């Protein structure tokens, strides 16, 4: 269970230095104040267990920043960030132990085998090596990558890397799974396999996981998500199930509905914001 309300984060970006003689301007003139970029202004949603929540938004909407704050990599300015009732800012390590994150960057160690990559993360999560190894084996079977396990990740394809990174994030059997654009670079079959796996993880047999998954691809959301949180310009602009959002915008095509919600002028959509179920 992940609860986020009133999440905000701004970064100070240093003004770019002018080229040529202009770069000496600071000697005579006052310093240019750094620009403040509001990456996230007000994101709120609740993602319950046994439920797939899609975080949908255009590029630069603040999805990755939101997920990074959830993973305690960035300290938010204002927030209430709870994972299974634990405050992320106050007790980040307890939260990370309950979370599996497939982040935007998913680099592997090229000189280690897929198994070693996975077991390393298991050990960092405090698992015994044998347990981590057994779990790697199980997950590999689930993601159809048993043949890859003992190969060095050096020559892996995009999809193989993705799978390894995903298994690595799930090795400690976390109750909460966060995936940042997991289908990037995956072909149709791999995407399907991923969708099936996520659906299974949602079921009681799969552990009733709480899955939050950010994307900018409409089909993913339509096919997979139980509820959708639309984020635009650092704000939650709408949330609900796909049919609910279609109904609210009066569209039959989800893409049209999304464009309406995400790119509408701020005044028009203000009334649409509401808490997710």
């Amino acid at each position, binding site marked *: 269970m992940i609860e986020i309300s009133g999440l905000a984060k701004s970064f100070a970006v240093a003004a770019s230095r002018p080229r040529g003689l202009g770069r000496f301007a600071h000697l005579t003139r006052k310093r240019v104040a750094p620009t403040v970029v509001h990456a996230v202004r007000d994101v709120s949603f609740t993602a319950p267990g046994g439920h797939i929540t899609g975080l949908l938004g255009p590029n630069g909407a603040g999805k990755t920043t939101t997920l*990074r704050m959830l*993973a305690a*990599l*960035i300290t938010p300015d204002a927030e209430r960030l709870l994972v299974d009732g634990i405050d992320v800012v106050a007790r*980040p*390590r*307890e*939260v*990370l*132990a309950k*979370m599996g*994150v*497939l*982040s*935007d*960057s*998913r*680099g*592997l*160690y*090229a*000189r*280690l085998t897929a198994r*070693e990559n996975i077991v*390393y*993360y298991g*050990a*960092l*999560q*405090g698992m015994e090596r044998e347990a981590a190894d057994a779990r790697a084996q199980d997950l590999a079977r689930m993601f159809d990558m048993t043949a890859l396990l003992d190969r060095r990740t050096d020559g892996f394809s995009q999809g193989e890397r993705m799978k390894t*990174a995903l298994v*690595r*994030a799930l090795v400690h059997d976390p109750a909460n799974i966060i995936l940042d654009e997991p289908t990037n670079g995956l072909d149709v079959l791999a995407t399907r396999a991923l969708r099936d796996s996520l659906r299974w993880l949602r079921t009681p047999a799969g552990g009733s996981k709480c899955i939050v998954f950010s994307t900018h691809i409409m089909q993913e959301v339509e096919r997979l998500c139980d509820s959708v949180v639309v984020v635009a310009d650092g704000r939650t602009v709408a949330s609900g199930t796909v049919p609910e959002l279609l109904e609210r915008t009066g569209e039959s095509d989800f893409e049209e509905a999304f464009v309406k919600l995400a790119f509408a002028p701020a005044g028009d959509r203000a009334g649409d914001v509401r808490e997710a179920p």
Partner: protein
Amino acid sequence: MSRRAAAVLVVLRKELTDALRDRRTLLTVLFSSVLMGPLVLVAISGLIASLESRAEQREVYVAGLANAPTLRNFLERQTYTVKEAPPGYEAELRKSRFSDPVVVVPADFEAMLARGEAPVVEIVSDSANQSSEASTGRIERLLGGFGRERAVLNIALRGVAVQLLEPIQIESHDLASTQTRATRITGMLPYFVMMAVLYGALTAALDTTAGERERGSLEPLLMNPTERWAIVAGKWGAVACVSMLIAVLSSFSFLPGQWVLRSDTLAAMFQYGLREALLFLVVLLPFAAALSALLMAMAIRCKTFKEAQANSTIVLLAVSLLPLVNVFNLGGEAPWHLWVPALAQNTLMTKVLKGEALGWAEMLIPLFVCVLLAAVSVWFVARMLRHAALK
């Protein structure tokens, strides 16, 4: 074992595996560091052996030999072989193709000598031609001996006491021990060892920091519930292990290096046994650990391996230039030398080679500096880690 210590070990084990799998880099470093000692020694001993053999040959090259039968007689009585200088010897000397100084005798040498007119005898050498320069002193002493003999004969004929010619007697005492004299030759060995340690640490240090950033594996790594300092400590431990391994190998490489010495003189002067190797290690191990941490601190600021390599040039320069204070002997040994990393290690290792005893203070000050440097660097890396993961 506490959970934290376990986490440090997990990271250490992984980073070591990773570093040891990078066979090509590791082999290059191992080869250069292990072979460095013996190679340098062989080169030095070859040089000395050639100087020694030239001195043993007892040859003198004279231009205009036919003009000076008296000189020839003297030289041959000193058991020297007198040879006519080759034609064009000046050009040969300049090109370093001929390696002995040449004595030039004027045509009217004998006549002038008989008249007591002091003929001018030239010794032609080229100071840029090191081996000819080395023999010049020997030839000068030889000709001086000829002059003295002539003088003694002339004076004795007139009934004057020979002692009048030498109103004082000169005796020189060299205070340097054999080992101290040897350090003039072996003085660069500590420098090579330190460079080997540096290059040993370099790749691993850069790979665990800037490399991790470049691969995009740092961000997921920090999404584990492991404390940052434990991650950094594990990484540092692994890098330090690699560079310490190089330190051990290069320190011990001088032991077999000794057996291949071609010069007996050098072999007698260069005392490097197990004791010296162990003392080298006492000096080098903390230095290797501190250097690893420092390189990591330099590299964590860089987004790519390449950028980190460019940045680490500063450390490379510092480690290679600081010992030069010692080599050029600027102002002799000063207490502050011990407070400067690299310079301190060079000073101490030179002392070990000289066979001088090392005091506790001399050992503890550099150790303290290394511990401090490592602590600050590791703290800095831990502090920068989260920031580095995101950019």
